[in-house]
């Protein structure tokens, strides 16, 4: 290359050219945080399998782990969308309980034990969830109240209303068609139906997020709300829809929980919102918006679930589980920070490269 041409290629162009050479598709795959977290999950599974092959690494055990993670997965899909828009939804646990309560009350009033009643219950539960979500969305987008505050408020209101509606007493009459099929039923004898439902939600959620205009607008609003507004994206309407989806999925989770526990469990779900948020963040979705994947959220869900399951089976004191999950969460956010700041400086988004270049300085 002649000296003249060399001179014309300034530092930025050179960097881009050399960066491009390194960017084979496989490399890009490995750099994705969701994939790196997935490797972590596989390592955890491998370690527990080695320690307790007869008990941990059995299909019956893993089946139950997947079954117990299913409700969280449904919630996780909604939360991923919300966090990508740089928002947050603390109310999902309460909305879950409230929709379950309204649904159970309706089904009890209808009296039947068949699918007719059950379907009404399902529609009511999801519908109530959508209403709460829309309520959240309107306050957030139109009244400009921060999502943290709005959803904190609806967390309290939904739970309080649930207690008022029931007088504090759980409703324990759930149509047996629900508990038998969704709650504990299996297809092909081994796959829990509740997990199949969750898988369908996850797949649809992923397809919409990564392939459609709706998903693109979600990323756009999270990346720069101002930019989106300027080009004519109806940001307010989009945010309302996002929160409505989160609420609707909480409503779906409500009927799933009713089916699984056979009771409205008003005292339950105390930790659910934080567990779901942790899962989304561990999976690589940025709390600051603009970036995230459904696959990452699912992996992020399984890490605490597998850790708890493995610790219990190997007899580790339960409080260590909290410590482990907390550590993984902080690590995930730290990695995200490092990648974001090195990306902003125009460098590589590989975590390891960021560490190495820091040392060189």
């Amino acid at each position, binding site marked *: 290359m002649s000296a003249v041409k060399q001179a014309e290629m300034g530092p930025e162009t050179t960097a881009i050219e050399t960066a491009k050479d390194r960017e084979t*598709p496989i490399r*890009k*795959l490995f750099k*994705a945080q*969701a*994939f790196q977290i*997935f490797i972590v999950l*596989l390592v955890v*599974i*491998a370690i527990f*399998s080695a*320690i*307790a*092959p*007869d*008990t941990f*690494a*059995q299909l019956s*055990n*893993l089946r*139950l*782990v997947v*079954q*117990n993670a299913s409700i969280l997965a449904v919630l996780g899909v909604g939360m991923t969308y919300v966090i990508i828009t740089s928002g947050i939804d603390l109310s999902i646990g309460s909305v879950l309980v409230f929709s379950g309560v309204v649904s159970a009350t309706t089904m009890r009033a209808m009296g039947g034990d068949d699918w007719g009643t059950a379907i009404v219950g399902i529609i009511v539960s999801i519908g109530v969830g959508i209403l709460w979500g829309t309520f959240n969305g309107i306050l957030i987008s139109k009244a400009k109240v921060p999502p943290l505050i709005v959803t904190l408020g609806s967390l309290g209101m939904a739970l309080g209303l649930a207690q008022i509606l029931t007088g*504090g*007493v*759980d409703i*324990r009459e759930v149509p047996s068609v629900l508990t038998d099929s969704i*709650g*504990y039923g299996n297809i092909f004898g081994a796959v829990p139906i509740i997990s199949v439902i969750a898988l369908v939600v996850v797949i649809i959620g*992923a397809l919409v997020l*990564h*392939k459609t205009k709706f998903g693109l607008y979600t990323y756009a609003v999270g990346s720069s709300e101002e930019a989106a507004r300027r080009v004519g994206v109806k940001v307010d309407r989009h945010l309302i829809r996002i929160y409505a989806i989160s609420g609707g999925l909480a409503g779906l989770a409500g009927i799933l*929980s009713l089916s699984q*526990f*056979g*009771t409205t*469990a*008003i*005292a*339950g*779900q*105390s*930790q*659910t919102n934080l567990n779901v948020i942790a899962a989304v963040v561990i999976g690589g979705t940025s709390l600051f918006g603009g970036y995230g*994947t*459904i*696959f990452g959220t699912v*992996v992020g869900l399984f890490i605490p*679930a597998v850790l*708890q*399951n493995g610790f*219990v*089976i*190997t*007899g*580790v004191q*339960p*409080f260590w589980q*909290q410590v482990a999950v907390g550590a993984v969460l902080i690590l995930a956010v730290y990695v995200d920070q490092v990648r974001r700041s090195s990306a902003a400086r125009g460098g590589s988004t590989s975590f390891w490269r960021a560490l190495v270049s820091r040392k060189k300085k």
Partner: protein
Amino acid sequence: MKWKKSVLGVLALGASAGLMLTGCSGGASSGGSSAGAGSDGYKIAFIQGVAGDEFYISMQCGIESAAKDAGATVTTQGPEKFDPTLQKPLVDSVVASKPDAILVAPTDVKAMEAPLKAAADAGIKVVLVDTTVDDPSFAVSQISSDNKGGGAAAFDAIKEAHPEGGKVLVVSVDPGISTTDARAEGFQEAVKGDDKFTDLGVQYSHNEPSTAAEIVTAALQKDPDIVGIFAANLFAAEGSATGVKQAGKEDSVTIVGFDAGPAQVKQLKEGTVQALVAQEPATIGKDGVAQAIAALNGDKVEAKIETGFTIITKDNVDGDAKDAVYQSKCG
């Protein structure tokens, strides 16, 4: 691009799952990390209602000592909160660890039925300790205190302190917990039998002392002439005493608490709480182990055992009733 990652991820997960299923049946057992190696002894798993509660810790101590005598090993797990959505994954994991018997305090009379029934179906002997479920037919035995009697005894203690009568309040945990419901029922039935006393009803503190304190201060604001409060469990008692202290009513209100943890004994000695109805969690634990082993050996089991209680007051707390106080650590 993003889609490719997901596909590769799913393939990798499927591959690793396949590897595990095919390759993981043999291999030497690694010997669990719980106390003792006992290859001839039984493996017992104890699932508490909530971790960190002295009532369940005392029960754990009783279980561990009885197990040691019988040559069995014990692992203990408990959810952070008294919450069936947190307890169920624990039960599932414990079942997967294939113990011979489970001693469990279910956190909801309905929600925990199915998972525990599944455990019984898997051949594990299930003993219900403390709380129970709506349909306990799958369990080999149920062991708990005579909660109704305990509630009635609590009322007697209040009656003794205030023979002239007055308003009384119950601070319970959550509806749907068999033990606290029975205690409240026993108390309220006794109140009904004595027309000098007015029943202000039951309030629920969700097993949070801070909530109990708020309930009590609010109740005292509304009815400053309350003479007695019955707190149906450990955290409720702790919080109620705090609430009375905050309202400055230690002299006029008699609190009778259920359970005798160290914090409550302190309150008893200070005078904010006048009497404690102590259960015998260690005995419940010991009986639980005995029933489990009997079931495992094929011997006769007792389907229902009711254990007793001790009324602790300032007078006997350091004397006769010393051993009735709950432990926060074993040994």
